[in-house]
């Protein structure tokens, strides 16, 4: 039967417009054989979660460099919970101070990749941690 592909949503929440990293990660994941949906810039938490539902993604990658992650990420995780989305891997990247990482992990963001993370590390992480579904 058809091979199962990992479907990844790469999202840019809030007004931050730095998309160089998000696009590089999107491309790297595509080159690793995944199906990547990129939301484009300036997404609200509501839009991101709705997209994740309609596209039935396995993984969500959130990219943010504006410092607004402590407002936007908890909102996204809350919405996922409310909509009953439990089996999705969520990771994040961008400019996120180390001190915020434990709190973000607590709310369900599995890993945070800071600047300088090799793309291979991210690809490997997604491959190994994406939920195995039917």
């Amino acid at each position: 039967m058809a091979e199962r592909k990992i479907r990844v949503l790469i999202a840019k929440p809030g007004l931050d417009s730095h998309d160089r990293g998000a696009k590089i990660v999107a491309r790297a994941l595509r080159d690793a054989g995944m199906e990547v949906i990129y939301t484009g810039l300036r997404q609200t938490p509501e839009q991101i979660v709705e997209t994740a539902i309609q596209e039935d993604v396995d993984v969500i990658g959130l990219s943010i460099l504006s410092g607004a992650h402590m407002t936007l990420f908890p909102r996204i995780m809350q919405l996922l919970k409310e909509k009953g989305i439990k089996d999705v891997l969520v990771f994040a990247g961008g400019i996120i101070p180390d001190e915020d990482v434990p709190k973000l992990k607590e709310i369900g963001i599995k890993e945070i990749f800071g600047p300088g993370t090799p793309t291979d590390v991210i690809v490997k992480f997604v491959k190994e941690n994406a939920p195995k579904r039917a």
Partner: protein
Amino acid sequence: MEGLAEIEKLIQGILAGEKRSIARAITIIENDGQKAQKIISAIYPHTGKAYVIGITGPAGSGKSTLIEKIVKKLRENGKSVGIVAVDPTSPFTGGAFLGDRIRMQTLSLDKGVFIRSMASRNSLGGLAKATKDAIKVLDAAGKDYIIVETVGAGQLEVDVVKVAHTVIVVLAPGFGDEIQAIKAGLMEIGDIFVINKADRENADRAVIDLLSALELNTEKKWKPQVIKTVALTGEGIDDLLKAVEEHRKYLEAGELEKKRRKRAEAELLEAISQRLKDTIIAELKKDKTLESFIEKIMNRESDPYTVADILLQEKIKGKKERND
């Protein structure tokens, strides 16, 4: 992992138009043949209601922006819409970048709109079966209109004819599209042609060129219309939708029945063909003599066609023997 009970729930969810169920079902359809069949069989009686519009055209012609405006209009008229945006899978990496919905993201929060991005997954020759089945799911879920968007460059697009009632080909002036369209066979599949970005200087020229190219195509009974639009501002959308309705009326006057019959037959034959292929190949793979036949072909002692005849004869003989 979905068991029978979960599939039942999914089917109920689809029929209720529940987004999560629709989404999960489409994923299953893309990945699991057996479960897919169960779902399709269950929802099939509820399909055949939606009007399917195929929209194709080269990258940069403004398809996605156009779709957004079309959908907004349809929504104003109280219709619900499903959108399937298809992008090519890379033959080298097996991955795909699905970037069409970004132009339609304002619609993502509209409860009456469902947008799904699908990769072609290198289906041999065109639109994946999964895409056709995804359309059925959206149909059964009660969508009044389903829009299928593909990048116009080859087999994928010609295939869209098989699933759509009306095919719209979107071109933009100055892209050298007119020639492209002729090459890609798009001229034959378009029921309506759109010259988008019609506020450009060479738009009128493009319309003239297109109309004269269409003149040559006298086979069709429906005379393809050419509409000018400026997707960014919404100009021409009303004319476009009017043209779609006209085409719909034309189809409903008789062509539609023919199309439906042809499609039902085609789907049946395809299903039979797929099953036969799957069954026989599965059996052959278990066949220990397969290896030696392959060796023979490699050594040029025999050829693929002769071997195929031999193997199939045996299979058919084998079946006959079992049946007698």
